[in-house]
């Protein structure tokens, strides 16, 4: 069973690597969105320092959303999704593997370039480790919840806008807990509560997402 999941992850990563452009585009988008903010709010170091974490997180959230609709799209178009539903591998396992592949191919690169954006946004030195840690803990939830959205909209023609409308409100808890946790470290406040809530939310979304997404795909294919 685990072997099958691993097989699907490898396949999806291989596809996204051969496809090439999507990961690069997501990362470029991430950097460009963050770069917009100094133009919008002015280059004062103090203001940038204050909003740095929030801006980086919002940008990460938007970037990870960018690649969501391709999660099931090509599999739907070439008929692979039908075969996944028909295969002895449980559909829940298939979608879970796809979520993990999505996280590896689109969120992990974001985490790697996040420190660079920290420099651009004048993030205080104490903020780098918390930024990375909260991203590692929080971004999987983006892939899980986003994956539910992607599975709900995969068979629709105008799915992209609907997808963002559906999942952005659901991203709010991740944003709240992650930014609170990272800011608490910078300000020297107690941090454990936020971290636990963030991890709890991620685990919870990991628990419900495969079922919800599998049900959505079955309903969508009808």
């Amino acid at each position, binding site marked *: 069973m685990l072997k*099958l999941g691993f097989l699907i992850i490898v396949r999806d990563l291989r596809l996204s690597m051969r496809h090439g452009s999507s990961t690069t585009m997501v990362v470029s988008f991430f950097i460009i969105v963050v770069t917009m903010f100094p133009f919008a709010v002015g280059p004062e170091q103090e203001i940038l320092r204050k909003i740095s974490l929030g801006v980086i997180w919002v940008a990460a959230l938007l970037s990870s959303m960018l690649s969501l609709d391709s999660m099931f799209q090509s599999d739907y178009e*070439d*008929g*692979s999704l039908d*075969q996944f539903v*028909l*295969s*002895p*591998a449980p559909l829940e396992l298939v979608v879970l593997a796809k979520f993990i592949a999505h996280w590896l191919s689109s969120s992990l690169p974001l985490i790697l370039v996040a420190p660079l954006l920290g420099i651009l946004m004048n993030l205080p030195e104490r903020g780098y480790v918390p930024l990375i840690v909260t991203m590692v803990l929080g971004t999987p939830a983006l892939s899980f919840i986003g994956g539910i959205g992607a599975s709900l909209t995969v068979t629709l023609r105008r799915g992209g806008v609907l997808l963002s409308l559906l999942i952005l409100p659901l991203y709010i808890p991740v944003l709240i807990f992650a930014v609170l946790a990272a800011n608490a470290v910078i300000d020297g406040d107690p941090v454990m509560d936020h971290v636990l809530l963030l991890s709890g939310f991620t685990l919870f979304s990991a628990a419900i997402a495969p079922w919800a997404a599998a049900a959505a795909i079955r309903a969508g294919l*009808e």
Partner: protein
Amino acid sequence: MSDILRGYDLACIRGEKPVFSNLEFELPPGQALILSGTNGSGKSSLLKIIAGLLPAQRGRISFFDENILGDQDWISHNICYLAHKNSLKAEMTVAENLAFWAALDQYDGDIREKAVKVGIDHCLDLPVCYLSSGQARRAALARVLCHPGEFWLLDEPTVGLDSKGVRLLADLMADHLDKGGRILAATHIELGLDPAKTTTLNMLDYTFSAHEAFHELFQEPWEEDFQC
């Protein structure tokens, strides 16, 4: 107990459009059932219902006295479904594609041998996007061969194939029937299978009348409706 796959009283409504009703079929081992009928007569829908991809409005399909309609576990081990589309990833090579589906469908035979059978062994290491549509369809047929299921559901299997390809397909199907396998195929093209092993099901014999479908959807007779 019966090893015949039997469909009883099947009805299908898709997006409020009645497709077919009162459909019955029988499929003993080693036999093929060819679905004929115009576009939209429900050939694909019937195959999808049997494959569990579409819920039936009504009816059941029995095999050894069990209703296998929508039984994911039974379906996943016994049914091999070939859709209009090939289910192959354009970015991956033919060999990678076949190996992936074989692993997922728990097939442990030799993939290369099957590729030779459908005549695409020379392009096993080519990405699917370089294949012609005929070659891609042959690769999809290789995927069908690399499936342990006894029941083949083929939806327009000849799409993209040239006359040589169609003959190859007919041979593969005859082979499968000889081994006791069963085939449900929706196709317009005469495949030249052994008539003793082939039954034709004309979908137009089972059209769903609007009145009946209306009753099915709203659980009330047609006439009464016009008064509200």
